[in-house]
């Protein structure tokens, strides 16, 4: 079986977000990283390959983005992906990206497709489901575990107040979140050296129209300064919450 992990290139969460004009992200000083959930997906994919030799043939990463996102792809290769595919296009919206990835997947026949539950830039949670529908594959969302038992794929899915174990036939798309792997795998020096020799296949995008666009960005509303309350007078806080804020 072949695993594909879809990765997004996002600003590190601790980066200060600024814009130039109305709708352009100011990229100066931004550190770009693999979207945290995609990084966890990649980690789990590599663990599955390690623990099921012979069954899992390869782990590939796919990315839709311009050449400037190659350092992020190289990082995924250094962590351990066998190969990478980059669709050479600005990722206009999730629909556009999913349509591009559909093409990649139908051409190369992946059995297990992993997507992070959201990207930390647009927080949309839509890519994996869109991709599955384009492909006509089943999808399982809110995935916190994937295991292979006697060649059966068993997925742990989070539900309100608990979890379910779901079996799903290949090919499928799993949309993964916290729990899928404990810590993201870190690239070792050997992996970094090897990543230089691993192939990144670049393909040109299909002609697809995005369905959404950002008309403008805004910074979060200014917040009033915190009102500090004397620790010896907790009654004051409770009084405010009850009578002024009417929250309790």
């Amino acid at each position, binding site marked *: 079986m072949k695993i594909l992990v879809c990765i997004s290139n996002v*600003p590190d*969460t*601790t980066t200060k977000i600024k814009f130039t004009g109305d709708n352009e992200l100011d990229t100066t000083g931004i550190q770009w990283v693999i979207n*945290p959930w995609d990084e966890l997906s990649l980690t789990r994919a590599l663990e599955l390959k390690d623990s099921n030799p012979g069954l899992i043939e390869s782990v590939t990463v796919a990315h839709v983005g311009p050449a400037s996102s190659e350092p992020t792809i190289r990082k995924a290769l250094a962590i351990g992906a066998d190969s990478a595919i980059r669709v050479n296009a600005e990722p206009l*919206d*999730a*629909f556009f990206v*999913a349509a591009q990835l559909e093409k990649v997947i139908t051409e190369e026949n992946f059995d297990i497709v992993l997507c992070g539950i959201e990207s*930390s*830039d*647009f*927080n*949309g*949670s*839509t890519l994996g*489901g*869109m991709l*599955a*529908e384009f492909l006509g594959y*089943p*999808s*399982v*969302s*809110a995935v916190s575990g994937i295991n292979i038992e006697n060649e059966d794929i*068993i997925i742990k899915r989070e*539900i*309100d*107040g*608990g979890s*379910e174990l*779901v*079996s*799903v036939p290949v090919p499928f798309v799993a*949309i993964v*979140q*916290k729990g899928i792997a404990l810590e993201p795998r870190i690239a070792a020096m050997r992996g970094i050296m090897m990543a230089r020799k691993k192939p990144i296949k670049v393909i040109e995008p299909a002609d697809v129209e*995005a*369905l*959404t*666009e*950002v*008309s*403008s*960005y*805004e*910074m*979060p509303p200014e*917040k009033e300064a*915190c*009102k*500090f*309350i004397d*620790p010896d007078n*907790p009654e004051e*806080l*409770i009084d405010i*919450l*009850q009578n002024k804020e009417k*929250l*309790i």
Partner: protein
Amino acid sequence: MSVLVYTENWDGKFKKLSFELVSYAHGVASMIDADVIAVSIGDVDDSELKKLGNYGAKKVISVNKEKLKGLDSQAYAAVIGEIAAKEEAAVLVLSNNNTGKAVAPRLSVKLNAGVGAGVSKLPSSTDPFTVYKRVYSGNAYANIVIKSDIKILTLEQNSFEINETGGNAEIEQMEYDLDESLVKTEIRDVSKQTGKLLLTDAEIVVSGGRGMKSPDNWQPLVELAELLGGATACSRPVSDEGWRPHEEHTGQTGKIIAPNLYIAVGISGATQHIAGVSSSKCIVAVNNDKDAPVFESAKYGIVGDAMKVLPGLIEAVKNTKTS
């Protein structure tokens, strides 16, 4: 023309979230002069379905099939998509919860409909159709134009006031002809706690971080949450250490919540934590470090040791309840 809202049920019952969704759909429908049609999948009795009328649904279409007992995203999207086409839906509204996140994107492709994911307000304009949403994990907001003919919106939980219209809904039990080969997932096992207030449903959340110092110190925090009728949560280090169950982890990679009141105790307030709670209506922080970043996000703060402040707060709440 209609606004179609998918109303999930929990063991045959709706909850506040369902009424928020219908109220939101009603708000959108008034902007485009359309009717609200609710879709329910599962075993929900008529008196429960009727409740949706009170929030603005004109009609409720109920599909009840044994094969659709568990959530299979592909099959659910097929059912909702077919009803959307039949009812000429211009806008579809789903929750931005686990189920909505599983089904809405599939509907997007099925209906060639752009998604406004995680909205918390009504569209600011219907031409161009513009929605406002949080981006960059709460570090910014974006106005997003949906260009397709059909639009899909997923609503953040606890972000929209419910609004009783006093209306009456017509109930339609739909004999849906399901293509059973679409249901490819099979639920093997379920483990679920019942009767406990879900963190995502809670209007008040009391959350603990490393400043709580030890898993043995949680009792007063739990007591405060119970007194306030709220739920408990925690920061990532606390769940990673196994001090609290991982379902309680609130933050960018854990649960993203928007309660009315979020009380952060002994949480320093790293960007990743705030990303999960920044939509809370009021944040109160208790921390012994007056320079902790959490105070930048808090409306009210107490600088002090959690183990000393919590008993004082508990006492104060008890006094207001007896007075």
